[in-house]
């Protein structure tokens, strides 16, 4: 977690990349939004984990520990690769197939590397993204981020808590 925070603090990024709280992981940082999670999982976490557990790192207590962490890293990177492939601007048969293969690998090995984790509905739903990619093509055309943003703008509009009443003439509300 320290390495991830170090990256969030020190990495040079363009201004369009959604900012992530410096205290990521703390209760005080609050809940991340879906777009922020995408940034964390496709930018900060993979760079941090590979720098710690990848081939370059040689600071593990034993070779067995190094091997185990490398397997956990490979498992995590299967999910990261699946997310990157699913979010690409263009899609192709090979990319869709690779997405499915990475997702199968990640889900099938989840209990091996993380025995305490329970399967959730989201794991099943992620397989349907493959079907949607085939049906509707690149995910950026049909993902829900624009609608999430619109809902956020509507929620921030001033209102008088009275359904159907105008906020322009509150004296009539």
């Amino acid at each position, binding site marked *: 977690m320290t390495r991830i925070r170090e*990256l969030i603090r*020190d*990495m*040079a*990024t*363009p*201004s*369009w*990349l959604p900012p992530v709280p410096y205290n990521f992981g703390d209760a005080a940082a609050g809940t991340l939004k879906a*777009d922020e999670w995408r940034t964390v999982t496709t*930018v900060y976490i*993979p*760079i941090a984990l*590979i*720098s710690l557990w*990848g*081939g*370059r*790192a040689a600071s593990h207590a034993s070779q067995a520990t190094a091997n185990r962490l490398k397997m956990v890293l*490979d498992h995590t*990177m299967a999910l*990261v*690769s699946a997310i*990157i*492939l699913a*979010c*690409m*601007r263009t899609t192709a048969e090979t990319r869709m197939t*690779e997405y499915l293969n*990475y997702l199968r690998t990640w889900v099938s090995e989840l209990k091996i590397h993380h025995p305490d984790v329970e399967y959730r509905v989201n794991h099943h739903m992620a397989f349907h993204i493959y079907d949607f990619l085939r049906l509707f093509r690149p995910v*950026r055309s049909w993902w829900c*981020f*624009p609608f999430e*943003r*619109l809902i956020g*703008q509507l929620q921030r*509009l001033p209102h008088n808590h009275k359904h159907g009443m105008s906020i322009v003439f509150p004296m009539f509300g």
Partner: protein
Amino acid sequence: MTLSYLKAGQLKQWLGRQDCPAFLRECKVIFDKAFRKSSVNDCPTASAFGPVPEGLKHVICGTKVALRARHSVGDIVYSRCSTHVGNSLVAFYPGGNRSSPPIPGSIQHIAVYPNQDVVYLVKRQMPASPGLVDPYVDYPHFPARLYTNALSPDLDLVRPDWILSHYARWAIDNDHVVVLILSCVSRCLSSLDIF
């Protein structure tokens, strides 16, 4: 209040006229910066153009050029590194040849020619030594690679349409950086400016 509003309107109309004196047009640039959300692509005024700096003469052809801090293409803003390091990091195709792999580099200067053509002067991120083990190559779909911390001494002239995207850079140690090529989400899709 109405009178001051009318006077401001008349001044604005006068500044927009073709026969407006040159020194008043210079004032308009300042007014625009102060009172409206100006575009970073506004044309530089005539006084902004000057002789090509000595250190750039071997890259820039022509006699006059204006240097600016940032430039936008679509909804993406590119900056020189002294203005915003993150916005200056770009992966580009040398010579516009898209069959070659993109090269990461940092924009040092943004130059505007008198005909409004814009070029970026970029220093390349130096590749890591061949003997170095790069742990990031194990993951072909994660576009991060190791480079050295240094930038090339030479400048590349890069046109805006030769750029693939921005990249993120993190110093993994004193000598090396991790370079991750990013894919931007278009703001017209990620936000709806309807209010």
